[in-house]
C-alpha cells in the first residue's frame, strides 16, 4: 500500500526526529516537543474512534484513569509503573467495555452516545476529586520521587530520555493507526458509521466491532495519561481528566484532520503552541483564553475546513487521490453526530 517514496520520507523524518535531541538541547523547546508528542499520541488514540463517527467525550476519563491509577499504585503500594501502567490500562479498558457494551448493544448512537461519554468524563473527575484523601483532590498529585532505581520507577531527569520515550510512544500510535487503516476492520467500521443494519446484513457483528475499536482507543488513551504523569511528575484532575481535556481532544483532532494519520499530531502542535503563546504573552491574565480560541476555531473549522488542516492540505497537493473516502459531509457528520 505504502509507496517507496512515502516510506523513504517517513524514514528520513524519523531519523531526524531521533537525532534532534542530540544536536539541539534547549530544555524548554525539548519540553514543548515532549508535550506535543504525548498529546499527539492521546489525540491519535481519540481519533481511532472519532474518525468512524464514534465521538467520545469520555476520553478525559480514560486518560485520568491512566495517570491516577499508575501514580496511586506507586505512591500507596510501591508498585512500579512498569506494572502500574498495564493495570491502569486494564482499568480504563474495563470501564470502556462497561460503558460501551450497553451503548452499542442497545444502539445508543450519535448525540446520545456523546452524552453518555460526557457523563463518563464527569464521573471520573468527580471520583478523583471526592477521594481526595488518596488522590489529593483538585490540588493534584505528585508521584513520590524514586530513591533507588530510576528505570524501575520510570522517572528520568533528563529531557532527552523523555523525548525519546515520547517519540516511541507517539510512533507506536501512528503505527496502530495505519494498522487499523489497512485492516478489514476499517471497512467494517466505515460501514457501521454509515448504516448499522446494512453492515449487519453484510455479516458484521456491529457490537463487537465497535467494542474492539473503543477498547483499543481507551487502552491507548490510558497509556497517554500514564506517560504524561510520569513525565510531568504532577497531575491534577483538570489537566489529565474531565470534560475540558475531552473537548481538547475533539478540537485538536478535528483541526489537524481526522482522516489522516498525522492529523491529530498537527492538531497537537497547534493547540500546544497556542496555549504556550498565550501563557507566555499574557501570563495569568489569559487563563482560559486558549479554550475560548479553541471554541471559535472549532466552529470555523467545522464550517470551512471540515477535513482539518492536514487533510485539506494533502487534498490540495494530490488533487486526484485514488479514493475520495473523506467527503466533507463525513466530517460534518462527525462534528454533529447523527445529523
Amino acid at each position, binding site marked *: 500500500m505504502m509507496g517507496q517514496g512515502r516510506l523513504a520520507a517517513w524514514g528520513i523524518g524519523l531519523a531526524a526526529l531521533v537525532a534532534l535531541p542530540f544536536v539541539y538541547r534547549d530544555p524548554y523547546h525539548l519540553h514543548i516537543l515532549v508535550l506535543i508528542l504525548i498529546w499527539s499520541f492521546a489525540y491519535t488514540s481519540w481519533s481511532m474512534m472519532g474518525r468512524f463517527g464514534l465521538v467520545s467525550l469520555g476520553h478525559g476519563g480514560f486518560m485520568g484513569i491512566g495517570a491516577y491509577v499508575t501514580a496511586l499504585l506507586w505512591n500507596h503500594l510501591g508498585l512500579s509503573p512498569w506494572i502500574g501502567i498495564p493495570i491502569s490500562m486494564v482499568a480504563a479498558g474495563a470501564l470502556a467495555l462497561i460503558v460501551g457494551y450497553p451503548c452499542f448493544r442497545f444502539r445508543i448512537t450519535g448525540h446520545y452516545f456523546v452524552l453518555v461519554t460526557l457523563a463518563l468524563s464527569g464521573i471520573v473527575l468527580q471520583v478523583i476529586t471526592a477521594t481526595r484523601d488518596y488522590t489529593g483532590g483538585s490540588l493534584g498529585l505528585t508521584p513520590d520521587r524514586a530513591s533507588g532505581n530510576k528505570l524501575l520507577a520510570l522517572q528520568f531527569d533528563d529531557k532527552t530520555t523523555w523525548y525519546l520515550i515520547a517519540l516511541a510512544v507517539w510512533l507506536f500510535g501512528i503505527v496502530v493507526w495505519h494498522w487499523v487503516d489497512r485492516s*478489514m476492520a476499517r471497512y467494517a467500521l466505515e*460501514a457501521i458509521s454509515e448504516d448499522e*443494519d446494512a453492515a*449487519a446484513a453484510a455479516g458484521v*457483528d456491529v457490537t463487537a466491532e465497535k467494542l474492539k475499536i473503543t477498547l483499543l482507543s481507551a487502552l491507548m488513551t490510558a497509556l497517554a495519561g500514564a506517560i504524561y504523569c510520569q513525565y510531568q511528575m504532577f497531575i491534577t484532575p483538570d489537566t489529565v481528566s474531565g470534560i475540558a481535556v475531552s473537548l481538547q481532544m475533539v478540537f485538536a483532532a478535528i483541526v489537524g484532520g481526522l482522516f489522516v494519520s498525522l492529523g491529530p499530531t498537527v492538531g497537537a502542535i497547534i493547540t500546544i503552541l497556542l496555549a504556550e503563546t498565550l501563557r507566555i504573552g499574557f501570563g495569568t491574565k489569559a487563563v482560559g483564553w486558549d479554550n475560548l480560541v479553541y471554541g471559535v476555531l472549532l466552529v470555523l473549522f467545522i464550517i470551512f475546513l471540515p477535513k482539518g488542516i492536514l487533510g485539506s492540505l494533502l487534498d490540495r497537493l494530490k488533487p486526484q487521490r*485514488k479514493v475520495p473516502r473523506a467527503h466533507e459531509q463525513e466530517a460534518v457528520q462527525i462534528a454533529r453526530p447523527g445529523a
Partner: protein
Amino acid sequence: MLEVNGLVKRFGGFTAVNNVSFKVDEGEILGLIGPNGSGKSTIFNMLSGTLAPTSGSILFAGHEIAGLAPHRIINSGIGRTFQIPRPFRRLTIFENVALAGFYGQGRHSRARAEEAAERSLAMVGLPTDRHASVDGLGAAGLKKLELAKALATAPKLLLADESLGGLDEAEMDQAADMLRNIRDELGITIIWVEHIMGVLMRVVDRVMVLDHGEKISEGLPSAVAGDPRVIEVYLGTDAETTQAAAAEARRRAGG
C-alpha cells in the same frame, strides 16, 4: 431448507405478521407478493434477524434461527438485499463487496474475501476495478451492488427484497434473468419479494401472497394469478393493468 411456522410480529397493538407458515425447498425461487404494508418486508427482516419475531419458529437447514443476531444468521448462510439499496459510500464498490465477503463468511482471510468480491461483482456485471467509487452508480448499478454484497456472503438462501423498484422494463427483465441465473448457476435458493407482478411470475417457481400480515394464497404462479382473493386484495387496486399482468403471468407460466 427453510421452514417457517406460526410466525407472528406485533408492534405494540398492531399485528404486522399474523401466524404465517411456509416452506422453501432447496433450489427453489419463491415469490412473495402483497400490497404495501402486507408484511413482506417484516417477514424478511425476521428471516434475516433485523427484527426478532414475537412468536413462531424459523428453521433454516434444521436449525432454529428465530431471534438470532443478524450477523449470525448471515454467517449461517442467508444473504439479503434491501428494498432501497444501502451501499457504503465511504468505501469503493470493491470494498463494499469485499467487506461482505470477509464478514459474511466468518472472517476467514482477506484473500478469500477479495476472491468472493471479484466473483460476485462479475456475476452481477459490475466492474471489478478496485478503485471505482459508489458515487458513479445509478439506480440499476446500486441494485446490482446490493446483490453482489449479498452474494459475497456465500449464501445458500438469498432474500431479495423488491429488487426491481425504480428500474425500466429492460433493466427489470435483465434483473429477473439474473436472479434465475444465480439459482441455476450457483444453486442458491431464493425468496424474492416484489411489487411488479409480471416479471416475478415469469421467473419464480411458486408464489405466496400476503395481505394484512396473513397468507391468503400460495401455489404455482398460474394458479395464484387466477385466485379471486388475490385479484381482489392485491391486484384489485388497479384492475385493468393488473388483470393484464395476471393474464400475461398465466401465459408466461404456461397456465
